[in-house]
């Protein structure tokens, strides 16, 4: 594999690993926000309209920004009726062949995300709720998550291609 590809893969792997390992702790933020909401309501009889929505935003960032790292961890299930019987090299070849499916889906996701974010910025779109927070920030986070996922999918494609050809990228 050419050197630029190797450094691309190394770089993307490193970025997504760092992002993913930071984002994974957000589960405590969700827990904390929701506990605080139930605590303050039961103890002090005050409730806040922004609590659940904040947790929703955190959740969205959690799974979209964590997407790239989840690809590295190979967390995504497959229908492995045939796949599980193939040799590792055949699997890598099949994955490299069908990587286009994933790229296409993520690309459409990204196009939609960018146009939706532009709309949110241009018209100051607010969420349809009583708190009505602006939607642009979370949409930007979502688009970043999709881009990170896309970069990781390309990196995985190179890894599979190398494996299918009997090389390693390290």
């Amino acid at each position: 594999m050419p050197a630029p590809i190797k450094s691309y893969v190394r770089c993307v792997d490193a970025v997504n690993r760092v992002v993913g390992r930071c984002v994974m702790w957000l589960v405590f933020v969700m827990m904390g926000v929701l506990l605080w909401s139930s605590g303050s309501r039961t103890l002090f009889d005050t409730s806040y309209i922004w609590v659940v929505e904040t947790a929703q935003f955190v959740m969205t960032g959690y799974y979209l920004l964590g997407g790239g790292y989840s690809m590295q961890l190979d967390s995504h299930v497959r229908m492995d009726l045939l796949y599980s019987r193939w040799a590792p090299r055949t699997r890598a070849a099949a994955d490299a062949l069908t990587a286009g499916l994933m790229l296409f889906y993520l690309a459409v996701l990204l196009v939609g995300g960018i146009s939706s974010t532009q709309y949110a910025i241009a018209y100051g779109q607010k969420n349809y709720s009583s708190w009505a927070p602006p939607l642009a920030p979370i949409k930007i986070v979502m688009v970043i998550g999709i881009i990170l996922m896309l970069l990781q999918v390309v990196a995985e494609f190179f890894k599979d291609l190398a494996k299918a050809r009997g090389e390693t990228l390290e």
Partner: protein
Amino acid sequence: MSYPLIAGLMFSSMMLLLLTGQRVFAVIGFVAAAFALALWGQGASEMPFAASIQLLNWYPLLTLPLFIYMGYMLSESGIADDLYRMFHVWAGPVRGGLAIGTIGLMVIISAMNGLSVAGMAIGASIALPELLRRGYDKVMVTGVIQAGSSLGILIPPSVVLILYGMIARQPIGQLWLAGVFPGLLLAGLFIGYIALRCWIQPGLGPPLPAAERQVGWGEKIRLLGAGILPLLIFFLMTGLFLMGATSLVESAAVGAAASTVVAILRRRLSFQVLEDTVRKTLSISCMFMWIILAALCFGAVFDGLGAVNAIRLLFLDQWELGPWQVIILMQLTYLLMGTFLDDTAMLVIVAPLYIPLVVSLGFDPVWYGVLYTISCQIAYMTPPFGYNLFLMRAMAPPEISLRDIYVSIVPFVLVMILGLCIIMVFPQIALWLPSLYYGA
């Protein structure tokens, strides 16, 4: 080309592409995006992203990472060690008693968590080695753990019923209560099956040797105390939610926090354990969320094709089926699809097509949710595709082969189908508790 034909083409191309072994979310997302663009041109390019905005506003999904976290934390906390010992001592002397005790253990785990992951992790790490060491038949034990842990999605709390509730627009509290007795019924049927089987073939599950049975009554009573902590967690989560003290998502946060406290009190919480738990939580949450994201888009395209009406026309006008025939046909298609398709994707794609029809035929959607969940449980175990199957393969010791795992589920799936039929004939089993609690 007619719309129903396109819908059929969409479905079959998804099945074909899944065979390549590419990740499920990618295949579903690709088919959805490609058909959307082909059908409606550039304007449809926003459909996949629109699904993520829909997910953003489906706040009950916040329970998903919290329940996953809680499941892993509970299995790390060692809370199940004492519980297992309790069942071991109390049920051990009977033939097949340890397997029966394992079902009991699974019922308690299920009452604390809304997925089957926790039960699988605990079953494979604690119950499985013990049972094998005591000469239990490996095929039966494997089946016991898979079937028992699948109760996690039926006995409240349940993430599958939350997802169903969002799609069918039904109150989660009622759905959870409706799951209680069907869950216990299934557990009872499992126990009945194990007892009967081991009574006929004692070699499958020998009773504990006399030496191990010498446990004093004081010790026996003391061991019952192991049940107090799970009961407390159940009350904090499901109890407070049903009483209206906490909202659904808050109750999941309370449960996640409680499981962490248990781990701290039992001195099992090291930084390593915490990091592992948090990483696995992200991993499983991402898997589910990306599948739901892609499946929502797929469902939206299906909806645009008028698939709901097409199914109604096909079932009611063309085939002229009666209401019960429709219900039975739906369950059969679920069971069939569940063997091949991802179970979460199936819920998101197929449930919106069936639920309007179920309601218009005059059936109770809460009852249908229970039937649906039991079908899901079966789908979790039936090869080639099922979550419990995956987990079992990853966690099973080497002496348990793939064939053992496949064979092990057969009797339990039959028992579950029996349970499904009982609940179809007697809907009161599901509906009595919610109508009692909420008033008819």
